[in-house]
Structure formats: structure tokens, C-alpha cells
């Protein structure tokens, strides 16, 4: 067992991370709201350190085994992968929502891949960029790509470094009631990023505390 395996977030650090993720995801929800014109509900982010396998199981439990995800990796002070995930069965409904009512069924089918990728791009970028701004460290985002499959198919391709061991897993559910749409934003970071993240969170906590004085 290496030293890295024993890194944990303190209560306050976890609280700060949840707050940063919350604000990032709220910004992402606002972007989605603008794209589809309907209210988007968000769950409280769940922040956990767990195994990759457990993370995959969690995705399947929440969304089923027929999932579609738009994935984007990010690198910087901390690195990892972010995904916008929803059940394949509802993917055309999401495309319909972002392309507007004037498109025919055939046009929607033709646009599916491209519209999903761009939707993921907008949502993940708003979320990650907001987090980077709050933690005051730039992140470089990759070009988004689309993956279909079950939870482990999605996670396998998040990033290739160290597929053994634990990951920091962040998970938020969003719901669009009017369209019966439900999806997830998930983020994963390797343990090596956790040290850097801890430092940035502590800087964020210090700043927040000093503002309050």
C-alpha cells in the first residue's frame, strides 16, 4: 500500500469540494436550461473515494446498462475525466430538446451524435471551467467524444493511467421533468490528483474564511 492510498479528504475539504462542484454543476445546469428552455433540477453532489469497479456499478445502478456518455478529459493542477451520462433510450429526446421542435424525426436521428457531443461539450465545459476559476488553476479540456455501453465501458475509457486502485468519484443527477429526462454528470480523478486538489481546496477554504472575517 503506497502513501497515496491513504490520502483522505477532511470533512471541511470534502465540504469545500462539494461546494465547488455544486457551483460548477449549477452553471452547467443553467447552460442546459438555456439549450432546452426547461427547468433543470439537480441533486446534491456525491463525493466519494472508491474503486473503479464500484464506480461502474454505481453508474449501472443509477442509469441501467444501456448508457450513452459524452466524455471529456481535463489536465492541469489536477487531472481526470468528466462525463455527461444518460440512458440510451432517452438520448433522442435530449436531441429533440436541444434542436428545437422544427426538426423532423429523420433530421433528429441524423443529428444525434453531433448534437449530443456538442451538448456534452457545453455542459462539461461550463462545469469544469467554473471549478477551475474557483480553484484558480487553469485546466485544459480535450475535445469531447461519445461512448455507448454499460458503466464499465464508460469508465474504462475515462483515462488510462493506473486503472487499479481508487478514484475520487463525483456524481450529480439532473432531471428535466417536462421531458422525462434524467441524466448524470460524473467526474473521476486519480489519487495522484487528490494531493494537488487538497492543496487547492485548502487555499479556497482559507480565502473563504478570510473573506468572512
Amino acid at each position, binding site marked *: 500500500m503506497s502513501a497515496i492510498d491513504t490520502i483522505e479528504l477532511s470533512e471541511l475539504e470534502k465540504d469545500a469540494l462539494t461546494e465547488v462542484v455544486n457551483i460548477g454543476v449549477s*452553471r452547467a445546469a443553467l*447552460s442546459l436550461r438555456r439549450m432546452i428552455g426547461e427547468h433543470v433540477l439537480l441533486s446534491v453532489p456525491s463525493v466519494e473515494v472508491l474503486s473503479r469497479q464500484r464506480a461502474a456499478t454505481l453508474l449501472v445502478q443509477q442509469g441501467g446498462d444501456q448508457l450513452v456518455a459524452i466524455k471529456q478529459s481535463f489536465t492541469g493542477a489536477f487531472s481526470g475525466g468528466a462525463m455527461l451520462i444518460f440512458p440510451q433510450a432517452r438520448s433522442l429526446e435530449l436531441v429533440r430538446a436541444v434542436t428545437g421542435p422544427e426538426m423532423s424525426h429523420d433530421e433528429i436521428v441524423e443529428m444525434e451524435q453531433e*448534437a449530443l457531443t456538442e451538448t456534452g*461539450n457545453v455542459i462539461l*465545459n*461550463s462545469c469544469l471551467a467554473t471549478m477551475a476559476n474557483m480553484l484558480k488553476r487553469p485546466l485544459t479540456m480535450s475535445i469531447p467524444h461519445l461512448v455507448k455501453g454499460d458503466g464499465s465501458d464508460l469508465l474504462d475509457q475515462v483515462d488510462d493511467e493506473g486503472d487499479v486502485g481508487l478514484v475520487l468519484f463525483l456524481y450529480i443527477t439532473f432531471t428535466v421533468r417536462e421531458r422525462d429526462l434524467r441524466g448524470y454528470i460524473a467526474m473521476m480523478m486519480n489519487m495522484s490528483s487528490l494531493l494537488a486538489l487538497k492543496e487547492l481546496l485548502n487555499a479556497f477554504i482559507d480565502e473563504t474564511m478570510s473573506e468572512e472575517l
Partner: protein
Amino acid sequence: MSVNVLVVDDSKLARINAGKALCALQPDWQRLEAGSAAEAVDVMEREQVDVALIDFNMAERDGLSLAADLRERHPTMPIAIITANIQDEIIARAREINASFVAKPLTAEGLQGFLAGAALRLRTGG
């Protein structure tokens, strides 16, 4: 005066959205599209381009690099970088090359300020 506006985005959906917003704000402007930075360079060799809306996150070559080249060749052309990547660094880099920054998803409301400024600049000749 006819105005040509070039929309550069690797996403068709994003180009459709930009088209809608442009149509609502400046219905008389002629719209040109490019799906990559390379395609944008081709279009600019063939056509007169007066205003450019450029996506940041594109494969091969990003929008800021394209915008920097355009700025060198067209010192007064109104250019906007369009992206959901609202990081302070990206906004600062856009400002450095005297380009505006407009957040995605693009709406008529979000684009209004940039287009009004662009129209004014074109009327007064830079």
C-alpha cells in the same frame, strides 16, 4: 452595405444556434459557415468576411489560434470567441488579441452586445 459574418464551429448544432441568433439580431447579414479552422481560412480566401464568430474548443486547431491569425491580417475586424470554457485564462487570451468573449450556449441575448458593437464599428469604418 452588405455584411458577411463567418461562423466557425466544428459542431453543426452550434452553427445552427449561431445562425438562429444572428437571424434574430441581424437578419440582413449574410452568413458563412466553416466546420474547422482550416475551412475558415479557405472561406476567407474566397469571400470577404467582415465579422467572425469562432468556437474555441475545436480539434486540430483551436479558435484562439485562428483568431490570433485573423487579427494580424485584419486589425479592426470584429471577432468573438464563443465557448462554454469560461475560464479566466481563456477570456484573458481573447482580450489580448482584441477579441470579444461570448459564452455558450449562444443566445440572441448573449450575442447582442457584441453584434451591436460590431455593427457600429463597421459603420464608422473601424
